[in-house]
């Protein structure tokens, strides 16, 4: 199954994407990840104001079959979460890079995002 890997985003090996617009970044899960999970039925997001470190588990996404941790690819403070995906988890399946975003982080280290995977490297990782 082919999946979308937009060129303007950075990626974590654990299948999250980051859209950087300094000083904040938006985080979600990739098209590949939502295809692997299929039918997402529940999303749990971090509290606004929580400080997270890069690589820290801070959200949970549940498909019919399993619960999966979502890791923040960047460090900083959660400034906004997407209540729409909590209300309607299927948005993660239908629009993973748009309406299905998870949370925004006020970056504590703006260089961190640059160390994440490019779309080309992430595409290679998922064999696309």
């Amino acid at each position, binding site marked *: *199954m082919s999946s979308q890997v937009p060129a303007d985003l950075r990626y974590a090996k654990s299948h999250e994407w980051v859209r950087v617009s300094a000083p904040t970044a938006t985080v979600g899960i990739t098209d590949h990840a939502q295809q*692997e999970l*299929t*039918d997402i*039925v*529940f999303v*749990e997001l971090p509290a606004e104001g929580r400080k997270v470190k890069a690589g820290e588990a801070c959200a*949970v996404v*549940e*498909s*019919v*079959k*399993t*619960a999966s941790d979502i890791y923040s690819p960047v460090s900083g403070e959660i400034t906004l979460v997407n209540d729409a995906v909590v209300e309607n988890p299927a948005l993660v399946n239908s629009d993973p890079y748009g309406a299905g975003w998870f949370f925004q982080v006020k970056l504590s280290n703006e260089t961190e995002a640059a160390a994440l995977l490019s779309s080309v490297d992430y595409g290679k990782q998922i064999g696309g």
Partner: protein
Amino acid sequence: MLKRTPLFEAHQRLGARLVEFGGWEMPVHYTSIMDEHHAVRTAAGIFDISHMGEVMVSGAEASNFLNAQLTNNIGKLDLGQGQYTLMCNERGGVIDDLYAYRISSFDFLLVVNASRIEEDVAWLQKRHDAFPERGRVDVRNLSDIFGAVAVQGPRVREFIDLAIPRPAGSEAIAARASSLRKNEFDLFGFADETIYVACTGYTGEDGFEVIAPAAVIEAIWNQIMEAGQPYGLKPCGLGARDTLRTEACYPLYGHELDENTTPIEAGVGFFVALDKGDFVGRSVLAEQKAKGVAKRAVAFKMTDKSAPPRPHYPIWSAAPDERHIGEVVSGTSSPTLNLGIGLGYVPPEFAKPGTPIQIEIRGRRSPAVVVQKPFYKKPV
């Protein structure tokens, strides 16, 4: 190395996502669990169940031998009938749950769980060695010889005869597969082989299970796929099989059932025939039926918006006397009901439908309520 069924290549061609299940590489889904679940509830689905085990018990003493090992009364089976039954150890713990079919006066086919084939065969062999009339009964593991598919859903009867057209032998009780009723089976001819078609299943829907020599199982799968396509038939994986059986409250070995849990505790005491004579585990089961049990399997649903319950999540009693009372053994988001449902073990005082309980999900407790089984019953 994981074992593969004779349908492995067919699954790959259909784009299945494959996972490990009980030592087998099996499809978890082809499109999505939800999609396949709804296909079975509204139209039809076909499942590869070739991983399941087949054990033939034959001989003049086969019936007496099996009645001394299994909980249900095999003497009640007429030719062409099957029954759900369980095999217990001396403590009443479940070695396996299975289907027993009466193939002929002296032959019984047992269909057992994939993950339990070795344990079952070893146990039956041990019991056979100790059986006084062992010269007049034999136990053969035919699991590698047979493949099997399940075809399930409200529209299956409309097309099954197109795929399985020919009854075999003079003992045939049903001219067509579609005239089989629940728990009946018959022999059919397929490409010079004899195959078994049983009106049984594990989804809560009407449907059939077809057991056939491995060499013809792919041809059967293809023929059913072709016949069922116009009726909305879809290939379905183990993911949907699990959500469907959970809604129907059918136990799954390793979840509701294990060697330390009895059929009475698991809520399948209906299939324990205490009046048929002695069998392994009988004294423990008789005492539990008379005096009660320390734990019971209950069905529950989440009452607030919450994450779905999952196996091993702790169960708590509701306020004001909140304490840890048990554990979830099966749990999922129900595609039919669109809410979190589960099965779990609790002390009997919490087993009454309507009892409020709590499920601990990632350190937080969410409210749930014990409900009548099953969650889903097919419309009559």
